[in-house]
């Protein structure tokens, strides 16, 4: 009898399984976990349905309950409201992201991922990108409902598409904030609770009412926060002219300002989230 095997015996489960030569790179890593988030979203119809119904409900309430009492100036309230509403719906969706991330922490799913030989930054980036994709889908539905209740764009189609793109970019930035909240909170309920702390910002902004209708002391707060910058940019693009939105300054000014806010959010919360995720 001759011994033909010189290599150390494979310590694998069965001869069919051998270790891979090198672990997945950052792209494969991000793609694999992104695919999981998208599958989870698509196969959990109640998530899709509840999100849609919630969005539609609030949009209808603002349009028909509060709308009559609010006079934004040159355009009908619905044209004023829908851009602002789409911007704030990014925050509504973020609550779901925070809860989902917290759930992954709670149920050991992140521990499994973190014990794998792949970049932890790429794991989180995949998650954030997928959540942004899911968010874009939600924004498209919200916008469609907006059109159904009488919203119309006053500028060009290209500008409207740019407005939508801007919302997605902003959504990506805000998702990092909510991923961080989910990681810090540690369980889904706490994550939802912490996310709600962001909501006063949606009201103290130009999203639903013109800022100059607020008391004087509140106006500087409302003027200088990211939701207002985003809303003003999206609204200027949708209406084709900032003056129709009751704004001074050019459309370009508001777009640049909103991109700066988005970049700022990413620069602060992406490193915070990755550091928290890496922490051992």
């Amino acid at each position, binding site marked *: 009898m001759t011994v033909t095997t010189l290599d150390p015996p494979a310590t694998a489960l069965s001869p069919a399984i051998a270790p891979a030569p090198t672990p997945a790179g950052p792209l494969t890593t991000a793609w694999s976990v992104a695919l999981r988030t998208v599958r989870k979203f698509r196969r959990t119809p109640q998530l899709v349905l509840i999100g849609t119904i919630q969005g539609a409900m609030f949009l209808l309430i603002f349009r028909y309950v509060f709308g009559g009492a609010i006079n934004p100036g040159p355009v009908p309230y619905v044209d004023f409201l829908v851009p602002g509403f789409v911007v704030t719906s990014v925050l509504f969706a973020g609550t779901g992201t925070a809860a989902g991330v917290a759930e992954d922490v709670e149920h050991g799913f992140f521990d*499994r991922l973190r014990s794998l030989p792949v970049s932890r930054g790429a794991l989180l980036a995949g998650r954030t990108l997928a959540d942004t994709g899911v968010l874009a889908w939600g924004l498209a539905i919200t916008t469609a409902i907006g059109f159904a209740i009488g919203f119309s764009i006053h500028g060009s189609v290209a500008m409207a598409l740019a407005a939508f793109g801007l919302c997605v970019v902003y959504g990506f930035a805000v998702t990092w904030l909510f991923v961080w909240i989910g990681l810090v909170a540690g369980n889904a309920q706490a994550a939802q609770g912490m996310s709600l702390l962001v909501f006063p910002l949606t009201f103290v902004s130009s999203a639903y009412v013109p800022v100059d209708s607020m008391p004087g002391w509140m106006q500087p707060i409302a003027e200088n926060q990211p939701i207002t910058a985003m809303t003003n940019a999206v609204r200027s693009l949708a209406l084709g002219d900032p003056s129709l939105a009751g704004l001074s300054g050019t459309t370009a000014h508001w777009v640049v300002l909103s991109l700066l806010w988005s970049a700022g959010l990413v620069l602060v919360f992406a490193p915070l989230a990755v550091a928290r995720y890496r922490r051992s």
Partner: protein
Amino acid sequence: MAAPIVEAHGLTKRFGKVEALAGLDLVAHSGQVVAVLGPNGAGKTTFVRTIATLVRPDGGSLRVDGIDVARHPERVRRIIGLAGQYAAVEEAMSGRENLGMVARLFGHDRRASRANTDAVLEQLGLTDAADRLVRTYSGGMRRRLDLGASLVGAPRLLLLDEPTTGLDPRSRMDLWDAIRRLVAHGTDVLLTTQYLDEADQLASQVVIIDHGRVIAEGTPGELKSRAGRDVIDVHAHRADDLGAVGDALAPIGTAPPRLDPATRRVTVPVVGGRRTINDAVRALDLLGVEVDDIALRRPTLDEVFLVLTGAPIEAASDDSDVPDPHAAAVAAGAA
């Protein structure tokens, strides 16, 4: 000689006031199943998470297959597989998709991922359920799939943190069988458990830890000898007789008999084997009580734990090893 698969020296980790690891020393060689046994809060989970590079120890050294965990965590992650206390699988994906995702992350290309996934599903008896969403799986199937997810990367060392906690007896035995098959194929396994029979069933080396340090180690047989005594176990017919049975056995034992009214049992440690059981039978005969069963046996690990720690394993703090201020208070109260 090859480096030990796990080599820990003086490992410490503190979460706030809780000292989860208090100078833990452990050397495990390849080719064995090592069971880390201890009550909740003993530091088992922290130890496994440290090996899995999820927790960074405050002090001490830890090597996995010769690799320094603190210096090269990414190299350690390439050779370990982790299955935790929860079934960390995605409910909205099928079993096949779950394993495929992890296989891809381990670096397998599409074809190798598919082959590994099929092999693991087959190995764990999940082939028939492979394309069903995990949300339709039973608890036992989820655990097996979770075990599978830690296997698709063909790890050299498999870390199982309380793999059967919360499972029904049948699922538990299925999982034990799966673990035994892995071991037969040469995968090294380090598992934690609070179930003494689990350690007895699976492990060739048992390490008992309490309050973050090792208090005893050896083969299950050695640990039982360490307790040093045989046990006479009498099952009385009537609960009222327990006291009398205890009194009759007391002169034979090396320690006072333990009475357990719930099971109508009296146990007493003895030295002298067969001779003592004759004495016991005679004493009980003289007393005239009805006895359902009498046996001379080796002590269980439960009894070993009692001898080694002075406290029965059930009486230990019920808190897990995650940092938690409440746990600190309980630990302080117990100390």
